């Protein structure tokens, strides 16, 4: 009785069959590499749409002192056991230096004292973990743009990479450098006024649990972007040479590089 054109009807059956397959076998289908690459297209679409709609300078909401969480949950590494990091902790980070290198005019090596002498920004912001929870804290630090201004970003640079001191995996690797935490952001977020490298949290120096001596705040993205225990900031043209090539520790393990969602 159908008045449908047969070819169109075939399309319907194909659609129904594919959906049925996807639903019934979702466990195996869900992680197939070819499907993953199709799904990942949505992430770059989200990135482009958010960059288009939000613009470069919109600020993340800021809160009042009364909103600060009494118990801000630390996540990721909370007590790094890396030997060189423990040495820095033992010496109250007197020997610690923030190195800025890569596609810059002048390499920098800044002590905590020198960082504290640079222009400061303090902000009370909400930290959203990819797991779903949120906590609010007050952060003080140097706007990343102030540091990049002093280093002089070369025109071919596109991303800032943050190399950290902590090894997140407990697995013993032949080359521990491979699994120390790393993250990256584009230069739009790097130049954003709320993007700071923070040395204070709620008015006191960062504790080890929260990333002492220096952690990143990228307020328009999720928590895993906000690298703790920063050792080096490297300016690069492409992220392909960084470990798995996806631009971050969790990105190389399947998470989105753009975590504004």
């Amino acid at each position, binding site marked *: 009785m159908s008045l449908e054109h047969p070819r169109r009807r075939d399309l319907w059956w194909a659609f129904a069959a594919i959906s049925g397959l996807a639903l019934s076998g979702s466990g195996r289908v869900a992680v197939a590499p070819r499907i993953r690459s199709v799904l990942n297209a949505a992430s770059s679409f989200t990135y482009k749409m958010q960059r288009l709609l939000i613009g470069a300078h919109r600020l993340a909401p800021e809160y009042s002192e009364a909103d600060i969480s009494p118990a801000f949950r630390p996540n990721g590494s909370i007590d790094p056991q890396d030997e060189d990091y423990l040495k820095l902790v033992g010496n109250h980070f007197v020997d610690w230096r923030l190195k800025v290198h890569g596609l810059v005019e002048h390499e920098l090596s800044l002590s905590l004292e020198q960082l504290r002498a640079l222009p400061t920004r303090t902000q009370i912001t909400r930290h*959203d973990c990819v797991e779903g929870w949120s906590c609010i804290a007050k952060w003080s630090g140097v706007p990343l743009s102030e540091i990049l201004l002093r280093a002089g970003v070369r025109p071919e640079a596109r991303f800032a990479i943050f190399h950290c001191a902590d090894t997140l995996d407990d697995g013993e690797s032949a080359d521990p450098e491979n699994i120390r935490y790393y993250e990256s952001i584009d230069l739009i977020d790097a130049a954003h006024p709320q993007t700071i490298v923070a040395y204070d949290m709620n008015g006191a120096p960062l504790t080890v649990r929260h990333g002492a001596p220096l952690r990143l705040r990228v307020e328009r993205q999720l928590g895993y972007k906000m690298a703790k225990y920063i050792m080096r900031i490297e300016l690069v043209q492409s992220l392909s040479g960084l470990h798995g090539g996806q631009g971050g520790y969790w990105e190389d393990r399947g998470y989105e590089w753009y975590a504004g969602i």
Partner: protein
Amino acid sequence: MAAVPSPDRPVVERWYFRHAALVRATHWINAVCFVLLLMSGLQIFNAHPALYVGEQSDFDHPAMSIRARLSENGLVGETMFAGHSFDTSGILGISNEDGQISQRAFPSWITIPNNQDLATGRRWHFFFAWLLVLNGLVYFTWGCVRRHFDRDLLPSRRELSHVGREVLEHLRLRFPRGAAARRYNVLQQLTYLMVVFVLFPLMILTGLTMSPGIDSAVPQLLTLFGGRQSARLIHFLVASSLTFFVIVHLVMVLASGVWNNLRSMITGWYDLGNPRTPDVA
């Protein structure tokens, strides 16, 4: 014997073209998106199976949580909602996975992917969220242009006055046939309007409110929903409502003639019943 037209029984064509091609296409795309979004959404929920009121997480006082707890009888699944705790072992909190007790909020058979994998769950969720939104925009634009909403979904005053009778008829699983089946009945109209104009928009808006990027562009969303964690709670509750809708919808489809309904949503053609046989009511 052919049907004889008479004033009290006008001749009704047996085959009625009920659903336009665009409605059928967007319906099925939406159905697939909804199921995949629900299953990947439960995967995401499992990464932190607790919901809160307000802007942030007061970890000791969730509005709702699902967890595994060690009791004197061993591991139990405990679901807490607004201060009341329920033992939900087997389904929520702890579940049986290939003979092993698995500690997870929602069981593996209802999440995408089956194992605990937040990264992949998010990829699925956001891909099908985009598809759902684009599909919804096509449906909405078409519905406005073709006046689908005010013609087919907006009940008239007379139809509205039949709500009580319709509820009774539905409870007895008695459905209109013949000419009366050409239009959605008032319960369908109100439910579909609610789903299209309230529940799905709420899903999308609360979903967007959880995005820190969107919050910087549209902080009003946070005010509207009372904070990011409230938005996450509402997202969960509205998803539950939509799941309830889908279950009732499927029961109604089964009860009112599964093949006729399926045919009309696939080919467009709905069988109003043979006009020669009197309505069996």
